[in-house]
């Protein structure tokens, strides 16, 4: 098991490093932009926009953009940040079973004295470790950049948000690894996972903006991931965290059952 973990950590290091650079550059751009954004009368600007569009911004509305927490949530954390890390975990999940069968790399790996369960858990451990690393490393860099640009951001809120973001990414990994156990192609796994995440995001955003579907927003996985709330209030909802963890565990267990029975 350690052999696989060591190998996968080495194999994915370069890719993860590039993801981190990409995320950091975007975070840097937004933080550097924030002081000049404060000079703009955002509320007046938003007043010109359609009501539905402003509804997209959620609880704090346009006023939330006056704080770094609200600005980063709206511009970075809600979508781009999480989507990029989800792309990484979906690619990893897609490679483990569906991609391995598709490319036939799995034959030689499974001819080694290691059970399918151990193989899947080892590679999952690496995906968990690197997604944890990407979330926390990006947020530590954000804290440092905020210090450099003299922008005040709450450490506790950032730390709590990192925990929820990790759980959110793991939950999506749970879905992706389940898809990997039933699909026959890595691209299908990545595509459906991204489509699901995007769809959930759009549906959740619409539920905030459109009165008719307001009550249905709770069915989106984004209901359990609200960066603005966590960052501004510096508190998390334990039940929501447990639901995200449960999605991850159920997805992983289902994939283990299917993978162990599957012809590869």
């Amino acid at each position: 098991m350690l052999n696989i973990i060591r190998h996968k950590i080495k194999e994915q290091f370069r890719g993860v490093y590039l993801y981190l650079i990409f995320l950091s550059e975007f975070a840097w751009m937004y933080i550097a932009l924030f002081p000049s954004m404060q000079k703009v009368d955002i509320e007046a600007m938003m007043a010109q926009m359609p009501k539905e569009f402003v509804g997209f911004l959620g609880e704090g509305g346009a006023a939330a953009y006056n704080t770094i927490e609200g600005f980063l949530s709206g511009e970075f954390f809600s979508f781009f940040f999480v989507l990029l890390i989800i792309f990484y975990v979906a690619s990893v999940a897609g490679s483990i079973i569906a991609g391995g069968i598709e490319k036939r790399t799995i034959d030689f790996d499974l001819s080694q004295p290691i059970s399918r369960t151990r193989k899947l858990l080892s590679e999952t451990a690496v995906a968990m470790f690197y997604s944890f690393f990407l979330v926390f490393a990006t947020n530590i860099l954000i804290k440092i950049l905020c210090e450099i640009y003299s922008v005040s951001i709450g450490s506790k809120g950032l730390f709590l948000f990192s925990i929820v973001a990790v759980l959110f990414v793991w939950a999506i990994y749970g879905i992706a690894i389940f898809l990997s156990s039933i699909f026959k192609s890595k691209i299908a796994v990545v595509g459906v996972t991204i489509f699901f995440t995007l769809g959930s995001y759009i549906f959740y955003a619409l539920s905030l903006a459109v009165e008719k579907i307001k009550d249905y927003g709770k069915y989106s996985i984004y209901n359990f991931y609200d960066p603005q709330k966590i960052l501004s209030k510096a508190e998390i909802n334990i039940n929501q965290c447990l639901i995200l963890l449960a999605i991850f565990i159920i997805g992983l267990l289902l994939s283990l059952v299917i993978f162990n029975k599957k012809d590869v």
Partner: protein
Amino acid sequence: MNIIETKKLTKYYLRGKVLGVKNLNLEIAEGEIFGFIGPNGAGKSTTIRLLLDLIRPTSGKIKVLGLDAHIDTVQIKKQIGYLPGEIFLPESMTGKNCLKYYQGFKSEIDHKYVAGIVKRLDLDLSKKVGDYSKGNKQKLAILLAVMHKPKLLILDEPTSGLDPLNQQEFYSIILETKKWGTTTFLSTHILEEAQRICDRVGIIKDGKLIRIENIDDFKHKNIRDIHIETTQSIPLSELKIPGVTKVERTTSGYHLTTTGTNGALLKSLAKFNIEDIKVSEPSLEEIFMRFYKE
């Protein structure tokens, strides 16, 4: 003890629509080199994948090294060396790191033996696997299969991609493993390969095991296509001698199919003005049509 034992092993794909293998009964003894011969799609790879528990049988039983192929798969794989038909190894690794990675799964490695095989196969382990030619990937996979001196070697079309010199080296490596009691299960569609190293051969076609033969009986068939180039007309009575199963007139001479030894035929042909003789191995399909049409 039988190292491989299958009873009425059957595998269907796509919910019974496609047959992989049907009622396969095999008993392969310790130290034996068993050739599994059949054309593409005959069921050779399906059998190997069943032995390795990569796919599960529709019905029937599989025992490998006296253990259940599914329940005891990890225990079995500690003692197996596998060479896949198509080699897919981690491309970003160097040969050395790849070797180190797969050695990590095995408990005992004879490093002196590994170094010897590397030298014999003339394998450069400093290069990245992705930069290897097909033949070098094959050599690395051979090394990975034999490095831990396994009790059972499962080889799927092992010499595809190897040049003739390395093929010879490969045959001698396999024959050496027999000395320390390794059993080899080898799938091939090259008759000469089977005749060269196998003790017994199993003939499989359309998912069904047609026959198992000792290699001596199999060799005795020595099926050959002989093309005789001559402008002279040879009486059929001179060609239709025992061992010649088919005679055809061609534009440049004659085409014969023979079994067994060809001494009598050569003696008969010596009386005529022959310009050239070409001897080749007929296709497996042709051989099956002739000998195993069941």
